[in-house]
């Protein structure tokens, strides 16, 4: 027999859908089916049931092969590595819960680490811009209930956040949006012909790397000033037309993705997009929100925000928190040879970082805490598999609009496996002993 668990939270993307239904065996040991989730969300749950899943930590032998070790040995190795480092990098944190992030912060502070999360290659530039010019934002609930103009800038939610449009932005019927998508205008700004762009009312095919100019042109248009004939590949008539539509919306929102955060101008793109939003609030109500990727990258920024005052790239080496992306950002630290060990948790930099960084990770001591075998574990000296957060253990996560949502445990982890938080606590205890605190 089986039972169905409702209102399950999906621990995959920043949309953090909380309406999933999961079928599990009566004894709570097997996960049988997932409904309501998109394909990638469902796969996350089903992956936990893989037959070839690792259940024990493994340590690299001299000849490159692996041997199984206990969690105790794994914690000993990790603590020693961190204690012996002058400048350890503790990276990842986006696919785990806030409880684990919090223990990680305590460790980071104790050893004077560099703390960085996946925002460093994603929405970190957004965080820089928000600090520079502030941000007029809202919750996804407000978008669902009020927004009649939806703009996706530099992102393809149809593939990256598959249920974002149906749950929050384009399709749902809310208090003041009873007509659903028929009452909304969809604008997609993207140089590519994406599936999201194909359903847009207006697709602005901006020239690659010219988002900053196009956003600037919108501000010029709002003020009724004269524009050059073509900006960023878009004729000025079109820019004036879109600017007018934005001003006339009842409630508009700009969702933006890595097409603007990680292309030419980076933080400046977001900085000026925020100013576009601010300008529009002279005429109507407008909001702006980053399409955060990992389900709890936002939470990692929140935890460090309240702990250290900075949401990523936190440098604790001198005993107080410093912050300067460009110096204390993981890839700069790695490529420049600023760090002497790496502890990775809840992320896969081996797959997402440039080759130079991964090569460095291979050269210096590296521990990876991750349920999966990944490109990162390939360069690690120690791989610690753990329980899946949001599947085998609950914990707090923050949605892309900074709303905290408690994830649930739906099934038992394989016997003997521990969680991120438990493993970090084991490492912390050992470090406290080494440091005599």
């Amino acid at each position, binding site marked *: 027999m089986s039972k169905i668990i409702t209102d399950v939270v999906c621990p995959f993307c920043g949309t953090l859908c909380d309406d999933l239904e999961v079928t599990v065996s009566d004894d709570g040991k097997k996960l049988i089916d997932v409904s309501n989730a998109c394909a990638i969300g469902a796969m996350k749950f089903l992956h936990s049931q893989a037959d070839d899943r690792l259940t024990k930590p493994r340590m690299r032998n001299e000849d490159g092969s692996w041997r199984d070790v206990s969690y105790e040995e794994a914690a000993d190795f990790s603590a020693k590595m961190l204690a012996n480092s002058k400048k350890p990098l503790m990276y990842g944190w986006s696919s785990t819960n806030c409880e684990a992030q919090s223990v990680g912060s305590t460790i980071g502070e104790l050893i004077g680490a560099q703390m960085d999360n996946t925002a460093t290659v994603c929405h970190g530039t957004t965080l820089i811009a928000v600090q*520079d010019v502030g941000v007029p934002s809202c919750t996804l609930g407000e978008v669902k209930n009020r927004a009649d103009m939806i703009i996706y800038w530099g992102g393809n939610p149809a593939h990256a956040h598959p249920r974002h449009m149906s749950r929050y932005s384009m399709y749902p019927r809310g208090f003041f949006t009873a007509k659903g998508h028929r009452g909304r205008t969809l604008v997609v700004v993207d140089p590519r012909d994406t599936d999201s762009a194909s359903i847009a009312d207006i697709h602005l095919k901006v020239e690659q790397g010219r988002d900053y100019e196009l956003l600037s042109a919108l501000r010029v248009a709002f003020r009724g000033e004269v524009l050059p004939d073509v*900006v960023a590949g878009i004729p000025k008539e079109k820019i004036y037309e879109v600017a007018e539509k934005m001003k006339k919306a009842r409630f508009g929102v700009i969702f933006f993705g890595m097409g603007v955060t990680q292309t030419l101008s980076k933080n400046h793109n977001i900085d*000026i997009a925020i100013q576009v939003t601010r300008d529009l609030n002279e005429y109507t109500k407008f909001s702006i929100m980053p399409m955060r990727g990992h389900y709890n990258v936002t939470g990692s920024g929140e935890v460090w925000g309240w702990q250290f005052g900075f949401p990523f790239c936190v440098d604790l080496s001198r005993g107080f928190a410093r912050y300067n992306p460009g110096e204390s950002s993981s890839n700069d630290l790695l490529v420049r040879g600023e760090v002497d060990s790496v502890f990775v948790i809840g992320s896969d930099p081996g797959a997402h970082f440039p080759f130079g960084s991964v090569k460095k990770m291979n050269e210096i001591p590296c521990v990876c805490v991750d349920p999966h075998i990944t490109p990162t574990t390939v360069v690690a000296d120690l791989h610690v598999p753990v329980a899946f957060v949001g599947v085998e253990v609950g914990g707090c996560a923050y949605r892309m609009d900074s709303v905290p949502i408690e994830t649930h445990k739906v099934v038992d982890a394989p016997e003997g496996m521990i969680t991120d938080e438990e493993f970090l606590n084991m490492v912390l205890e050992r470090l406290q002993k080494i440091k005599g605190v």
Partner: protein
Amino acid sequence: MKKVELTIKQQPELYLETENITPDAFAGKSADEIAALNVYEGNVTHKLGDFFSIAGTPGATAADTQIVVNGNLERVKWIGSRMTAGEVVVESSMDMYAGAFMAGGKLLIKGNAGHFTGLGMTGGELRITGNAGNYLGAAYRGDWRGMQGGVLRVNGNAGSDVGSFMRGGEIIIGGDADVHVGTHQEGGKIVVKGNAKSKVGGQMVKGEIIVFGTIDVMMPGFAHRDNVDLEVDGTKATFKRYEGDLGERHPKSKGAVVYGQLYIKQ
């Protein structure tokens, strides 16, 4: 002026933070006291004397102290930061934060300077004989005040984000500048003797940018007003004068709107 000579005798494994290499920190100290000043490598605190040999004596005040730093300093950060007077000569290329937040005196780097050089400086003279990295004379993260005073001169090229949030002083770049010159600029003057790429003067409120070469792609918010004859850093020429960023807020002075001024040599 009295002179202290430092020579790096051991390279750090990682990078060294040496914000104590300033006339202000050295003034009035004996060689032993200077050797006992802290330098930092990651979470480890070392003594300056562990990495540098020290010769000569400083003056009684910062203004009366010259520091010359010899050897390969490519893994050394923060020399001359927050200095208020005196002179520092770096006989090598160096890493980040040279002269960051400096308020007075002279800092000369005989080589290249890394990113964040002259960050938020408020006064003094900073000269780089080679190239400079990104964020030259810009604001520290989150600050709305970039460079506010003094002169920053680079003989070679500069990276991106020159003078972001700049509010005063002068930056002169002998060569080319990468993207984003004077973003959010609200005062001061930036001169680029070579070419600039794009995103020049975006979100600029006021102040001046003068480009001798070309700009690959102009920002849409700059309007050509007229042509003017100017003498810039010893060169007389005719420049096209633009005003902008027309999409940005602008203050008024005596009833007239004040715009950022962008000059491009004809």
